[in-house]
């Protein structure tokens, strides 16, 4: 079966699927009840079975799902974990987050590339293995990390690479690889309200059944809980709006949805991973509570594709909850309290962390953010009222349901109640998960995690801001430093421009391509920064960098574009001298390499003498 792709490539025309392949495909479709909204799930399985999305499979899928072939192709070409060309039987991806870089990922990747004899993006000629880079896999404190056939690899070393290459060459199934390769640790270093308070599964729901949905909502409102994804919208208000929203004609049964955003894609963030691994019951309890408050019968947890390894675990927890009547019909004996949860897995797209793009993906489409208004609370999944909250928000909501709003509001500051779970990585002795009350100073956090000789840190991931060592008295909170929880520390040995370059490449790679300023602008920024870092920048290039940054920030469609220039703007403001040092002493330097452009001509003419080269003059 696996030779067909080579024949296919050689012939240049798609080969029809064999009968066996066709039946594999139809079994996948059947498993998902031929439901087109599950296209991303279906394509995940097709990719896993066929190692790519064959052109013929697109036709069969379109016919079986009752959608257009173009939709299948468009989705297949949008998500990075799908490929229209065959990938290796072992598909290895190395996380390209800056925190992985700092732990030596680039050297590890170079070694892997050398041992496999292939370059990034290539598949070995025997079809056995392919290798590439991928955006942050959320293992920032236990990198260098990667994925093999979608499963998380941590703490990669040269020795481990040697063993992996041997396993690949021997054709040992991934299920038989040493378990320690896949070990993911929690690394909880500081627990507070959310991580310390025990919640017996069902206890918050039981209490809510006793006091009713109105009173539960009142407690959520009283708690002052704000969304933990970073934007900080009031959770109580969101639930209330959704509850009040009309879901359709008055005579039809109300249709509302609860969606948990577990698309934790912001580089440097990994706290949701820990919550899902060790506090899954608490997260599901929060979702169920929300279902009760807003009158939803179905919830979805949208898990980022990089966390595939958590899928089985989450399904087991859900099964257990169903057995204990914490999900299903008449939950805990309450008539009419019906709610269930399904895990849906993404396929490599940072943009799906944006709530409306996430909903599009849940509906089996490309993850393109919608126009707002209307907002998901009135027009969300299937255009019905939907609450989309972060994993941590639901975990907090469950505890508030049990302990009450005042318990939560007692902690934190005026506008930022409760605690915040931080994912700390980078240059510090004790990276991991730290939960702090809002209002805690950066200095205290740096002390606790053992950061010394600190140059600065990136708060809130690439889309957040870079703060320098002159700002360590600033505090966590919506009043000062709001954050989704990413906390990447850099000491004085680090090159800020390299960090910024990594972030800028990330955004260009993750832009969905919908709006002009982000689609074109993030790539322009990437090229402009590459030019500067390569030492080809002149003074005019800095002006241009600022100009493009502002344009992208001010006119983009969604948060991705609006924040994509933050790394550049916040470091330009704090460290202009670092940028200026890279400049050549000229007013203008062309963006393109004139001599380099003549390379093809030289090759065609078979010349490489002095007269076949052009000296490029800069304007002084």
């Amino acid at each position: 079966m696996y030779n067909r792709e080579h024949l296919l490539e050689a012939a240049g025309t798609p080969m029809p699927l064999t009968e066996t392949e066709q039946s594999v495909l139809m079994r996948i479709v059947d498993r998902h009840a031929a439901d087109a909204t599950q296209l991303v799930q279906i394509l995940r399985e097709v990719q896993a079975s066929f190692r790519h999305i064959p052109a013929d499979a697109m036709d069969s899928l379109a016919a079986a799902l009752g959608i257009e072939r173009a939709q299948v192709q468009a989705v297949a070409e949008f998500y990075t974990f799908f490929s229209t060309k065959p990938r290796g039987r072992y598909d290895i991806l190395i996380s390209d987050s800056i925190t992985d870089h700092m732990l030596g990922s680039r050297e590890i990747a170079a070694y892997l590339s050398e041992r496999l004899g292939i370059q990034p993006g290539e598949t070995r000629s025997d079809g056995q293995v392919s290798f590439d880079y991928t955006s942050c896999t959320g293992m920032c404190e236990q990198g260098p990390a990667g994925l093999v056939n979608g499963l998380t690899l941590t703490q990669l070393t040269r020795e481990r690479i040697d063993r992996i290459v041997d396993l690949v060459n021997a054709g040992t199934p991934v299920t038989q690889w040493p378990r320690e390769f896949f070990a993911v640790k929690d690394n909880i270093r500081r627990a507070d309200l959310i991580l310390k308070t025990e919640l017996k599964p069902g206890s918050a729901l039981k209490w809510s059944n006793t006091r009713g949905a109105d009173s539960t909502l009142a407690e959520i409102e009283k708690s002052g809980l704000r969304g933990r994804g970073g934007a900080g919208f009031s959770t109580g208000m969101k639930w209330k709006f959704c509850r009040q929203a009309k879901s359709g004609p008055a005579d039809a049964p109300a249709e509302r949805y609860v969606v948990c955003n577990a698309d934790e894609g912001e580089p440097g963030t990994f706290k949701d991973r820990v919550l899902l691994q060790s506090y899954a019951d608490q997260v599901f309890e929060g979702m169920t509570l929300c279902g009760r408050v807003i009158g939803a019968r179905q919830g979805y947890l949208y898990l980022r594709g990089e966390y595939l390894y958590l899928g089985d675990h989450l399904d087991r927890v859900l099964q257990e909850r169903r057995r204990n009547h914490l999900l299903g019909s008449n939950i805990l004996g309450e008539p009419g309290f019906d709610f269930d949860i399904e895990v849906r897995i993404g396929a490599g797209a940072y943009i799906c962390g944006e709530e409306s793009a996430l909903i599009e993906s849940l509906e089996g489409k490309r993850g393109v953010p919608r126009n707002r208004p209307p907002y998901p609370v009135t027009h969300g999944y299937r255009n019905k009222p939907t609450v989309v909250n972060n994993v941590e928000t639901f975990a907090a909501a469950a505890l508030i349901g049990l302990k009450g709003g005042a318990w939560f509001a007692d902690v934190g500051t005026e506008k930022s109640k409760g605690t915040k779970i931080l994912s700390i990585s980078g240059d510090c002795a004790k990276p991991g998960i730290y939960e702090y009350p809002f209002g805690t100073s950066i200095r205290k956090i740096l002390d606790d995690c053992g950061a010394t000789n600190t140059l600065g840190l990136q708060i809130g991931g690439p889309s957040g801001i870079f703060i320098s060592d002159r700002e360590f008295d600033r505090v966590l909170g919506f009043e000062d430093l709001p954050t989704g929880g990413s906390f990447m520390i850099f000491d004085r040995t680090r090159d800020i421009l390299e960090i910024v370059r990594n972030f800028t490449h990330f955004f260009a790679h993750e832009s969905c391509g919908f709006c002009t300023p982000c689609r074109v602008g993030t790539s322009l920024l990437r090229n402009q920064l590459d030019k500067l870092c390569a030492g080809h920048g002149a003074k005019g290039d800095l002006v241009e960098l600022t100009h493009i940054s502002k344009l992208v920030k001010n006119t983009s469609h969604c948060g991705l574009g609006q924040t994509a220039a933050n790394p550049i703007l916040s470091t330009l403001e704090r460290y202009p001298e670092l940028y200026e040092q890279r400049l050549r002493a000229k007013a203008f330097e062309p963006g393109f390499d004139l001599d380099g452009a003549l390379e093809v001509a030289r090759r065609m003419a078979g010349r490489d003498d002095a007269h076949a080269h052009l000296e490029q003059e800069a304007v002084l």
Partner: protein
Amino acid sequence: MTAHTITIDGQQVPFIEGQTIIEAATAAGVYIPHLCHNPEFTPHGSCKLCTVKVNGRNCSACTFPAVDGQEVLNDTEELNETRRAITQMLFVEGNHFCPSCEKSGNCQLQAVGYFLNMLDAHFPFFYPSREVDASHPEVMLDRDRCILCELCVRASRDVDGKNVFALSGRGIHTHLIVNSTSGKLADTEISVDDKAVHVCPVGAILVKRTGFEVPIGQRIYDHQDISEVSLAMEESVAGESHGG
């Protein structure tokens, strides 16, 4: 009916409940530059050329609902500079060679460039390699000129009921695909009379053998600003859809 108004650059503009800012503006004879917007189709909001300031915040006029009392800034130096840069981005992203393009003079991208006084491309060109599809006997698809506005996507889906076009890929690699196994236009259900064939604001979708029927120099934007043409055309569309 109570009278609703917003102000655009200080001018009072009435609107009907449910109208977007650009719909209200067009009805009042105020031009807001745009490319992906066409009053005949669902508002889209991707090109961002119609960016206006609403109570101090940037919004897309084509998708943002008009709300009583809004103060909208439209024809300001800052906004027009932004729009010029966005237009330049569209130029460098694709391969637009106006002098050799049969759409020259009828092209909205070119016309908007003139309107915004765009004198050069400013940004470095990407020179992407894009596929030209001449497979269909009557319709030509030159992706070099595609600005990803999705008007053909919307027209084929909403008017022709055919779903011939879709956007695929991601980021700077976003591209237009057609709905056929071969990926060729000839194998789709498109026909030359489809709305989708005639809605392209640039020269990406063209009817074959009609290229120079109207000589250069006598084309729509050769003698008229896009602001005038657009208002004249779109006011009549708006009039029809709102029952006069």
